[in-house]
């Protein structure tokens, strides 16, 4: 019988370990005892992708009781065959880091600290800032009197951390605002 590495692991999937192993005609005893102790047992597994270099190593993220309990390389990803570098191996620690920013924060002019605010307050303020700046500085014509319809006093930077779908939305939004000072990590 021909089984891919990933297929083999699936066959040994949580809850069906006994059935899977007997399908393969293996001695179940010790393996069963070991499998019962795996920390990923009972978790939900999702395929994700490492957010660092462009090898795009696929990862398996295990979630149990609303928490990420494990992130490891996906053995079915042909490029990595389940491998990860030091950064990829540290992915769980970064996802669950206590240093994560988890609430919107505002810094007032001249202040030395951050103040937590709710999303609506932030989004409304941001929209107002953008609109006021755009209305004040919008350039309809350039020095030669040619129509240019652009906003030169507001920039956008980032991000190659965005998915393709986020990039498409970002580009679309920036074009509609008329922003021309627009760049990201492709030059860094």
């Amino acid at each position: 019988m021909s089984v891919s590495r990933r297929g083999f692991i699936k066959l040994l999937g949580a809850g069906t370990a006994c059935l899977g192993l007997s399908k393969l005609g293996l001695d179940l005893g010790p393996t069963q005892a070991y499998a019962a102790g795996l920390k990923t047992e009972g978790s939900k597994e999702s395929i994700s992708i490492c957010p660092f270099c462009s090898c795009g190593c696929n990862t398996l993220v295990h979630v149990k009781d609303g928490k990420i309990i494990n992130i490891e390389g996906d053995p079915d990803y042909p490029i990595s065959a389940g491998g990860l570098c030091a950064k990829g191996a540290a992915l769980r620690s970064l996802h669950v880091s206590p240093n994560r920013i988890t609430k919107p924060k505002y810094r007032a002019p001249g202040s030395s600290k951050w103040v937590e605010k709710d999303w609506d307050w932030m989004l409304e303020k941001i929209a107002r800032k953008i609109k006021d700046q755009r209305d004040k500085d919008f350039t309809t014509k350039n020095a030669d009197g040619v129509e240019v319809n652009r906003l030169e006093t507001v920039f956008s930077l980032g991000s190659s951390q965005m998915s393709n779908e986020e990039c498409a939305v970002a580009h679309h939004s920036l074009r509609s605002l008329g922003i021309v000072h627009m760049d990201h990590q492709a030059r860094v």
Partner: protein
Amino acid sequence: MTQHYTDIANADAVLIMGSNAAEHHPISFRWVLKAKEAGATIIHVDPKFSRTSARCNYHVPLRSGTDIAFLGGMVKYILEKKLFFSEYVLNYTNASFLVGEKFSFKDGLFSGFDAAKKKYDKGAWAFEKDEKGMVKRDKTLAHPRCVINVLKAHYDRYNLDTVSQVTGVSKENLLKVYDAFSATGKPDKAGTMLYALGWTQHTVGVQNIRLAGIIQLLLGNFGVAGGGINALRGEPNVQGSTDHALLYGYMPGYHNAPLSTWKTLEDYQKANTPKTVDPLSVNWWQNRPKYIVSLLKGWFGENATKENDFCYGLLPKLDPGMDCSHLFIFDRMYQGKIKGGLLFGHNPCQSFPNSNKVRKAWDKLDWLVVGEVFHNESTDNFKRPGVDPKKCKTEIFLLPSAYRAEKEGTISNSGRWHMWHYKAIEPLGQSRSMGDMFVEIMNRVRELYKKEGGAFPDAILKHKVIEKFDAEEMTRRINGYFTKDIKIGDKEYKKGQLVPGFPNLQVDGSTSSLCWVYCGGYTDAEGNLAKRRDLTQTPMQAKIHLYPKFAWAWPVNRRVLYNRASVDMNGKPYNPAKAVIEWDGTKWVGDVPDGPAKPMAQGGPYPFIMQTEGHGQLYGPGREDGPLPEHYEPAETPLAVNPFSAQMSNPCMKMVHGSEYDVLCKNADPKYPIVLTTYCMTEHWCSGSETRNGPALLEAEPQQYVEMSPQLAAERGIKNGDVVDVVSMRGKVQAVAMVTVRIKPFQVMGKTVHLVGMPFAFGWTKPKCGDAVNRLTTSVGDPNTTIPEYKACLVNLKKATKVTEL
């Protein structure tokens, strides 16, 4: 990448240059090692010995910024020893094209140079055409203005002595590399080149890669398995974010951003659609108008009609020559001309060059919106060491961003594999995806314009930005829809159906697509192909690790670009053992070919389908700084004389002058005699703003260091572990001395030149780990891309008398 990661294993020679693949793309190296196990020669040309070098057949140290001298020498070697793949060169490259009489090259400058504007008139480099507009060719290659003869004449100066003098590479080492890599010029051999920011981040970055392309064309290494030029891109989705053009100068899908001189859509299309009279050239960009109209339909929906120019007039226009890339953004910010901005997943106060300038410019903003996962040097710039927060007026809105496993969508790896990732868990706390943030901000801006009116409201109100972020729906919009019922050939499509591939995109507004290269990645028949996990392949595909059913690759799931160049005129593979495609008499098998047309011998087209004339460009008249790469020294150079010409640095390089930090030391400045090169690390990603939050990673690599040779350390009385001050014209950085034989002094133009290397991952927000190395680097850039010269500037160093940063 013209190829993809697993293809590296097919190479007979791997030249890793401008990259430290084993440390910075560790997983890519699996495939380098597979090639080595199969007998390939692996060569690392890089200023310092690293874990990449350790696994290569040999490491050749090169003074940073001299790649063109090194590779130019290889071109001379290949041409003189006739090691090129002559059939390929004659049939598939522009070797036989005649360069026009206006072309000349004198003492470092090509014809057409305007010294006042620091700009070339590229018309001076054009090919000679006959009365019908066909480029004149001499297939005997005898004419002195044949491209191959122009190439020969240009690189004649790149002899071993001069190249060795400039690069600091011994003649023996030069010959070793030239010999090993040129051996892939045989029909059944392939050599690949892997590069990264070590090639791009120079004032001659584009020409570094052009020259690599020239060598690969001479050796017949494009289109074949184990060949090509492969950028190991540094960021998770920098391939995709470039495809979708988060860049001032482009629109999604590699179309120029509109200029003020292109007033109407017709003007735009005319200026941007190349034409050829040669019926055998596919000239794929002749299809651009279809992609532009489909993009405008994707953006403006039913508001875009033929009558209103598909809303082209609502797009912002740049003035010709206007540069809005980050060097200029920060220059204008420093001068108070930029008031506010949006920053997403980016840390410019750490990762941009000349950070003292960047940080001061940042202080001058009135307001700033940031989407981030962690605090970093850019979010918290107002409280950096030595600065009084009271004096910083910037109002900052910091939005918590969801991390990768908390959101779904696609990313594109360096090999253009378009892959879906699933949401494993809800975003932590109140964090949200950046897609959500953009949509929510735009919804509110739109409401304000609806209510209040304002400046040019049509642009805001007529754009159909999605109103609730949905990754799956965005993937469909990127692919594109039919906007009405139409018939293409004998096939009927209904409004609302997904377009099954970009050959179906239309110029009349009956299709939409937010990025044409991705069209075909999501179809009604097969769904979201980025989700495919099928590892099966035909035996022919398996031989070259093609994996055509795993995810999807743009364009049209083609895994190896220009693959029609891997076969002879009859469609037979040059290397049958590692065939990419093959004509079986009725159709192509293997990879998705560059078009279904028959082989060239049966009337099929030339293989280089994206080039106007269908041929690989040994001579390329399209770049800003010349049709052929020429060695120029970095903007800061330890040399007093450039032996190749009187032109010391790239005559067209981009410079900014808006601050007191925009200074360069003089050539061979005795105050700054040491070359500095900067780089990433295995344990920290880029500026380190994320990975410094990983306890294991910070423990593994805790502090800023500077790698230097024992000879330099001895000269300066520095011991391993001492803290040193590294200074340039622009700033000072403290670092722990790592005295190591991995770096060797170079013998350059009769003198010893020292080089030091520093990672750029350490910033002040983590106590005692050091601060930005980019305080030392220069604000100069490549004339084509304005990518800054991070990889070579001049510094001096001495043992620190007082340690403040570590």
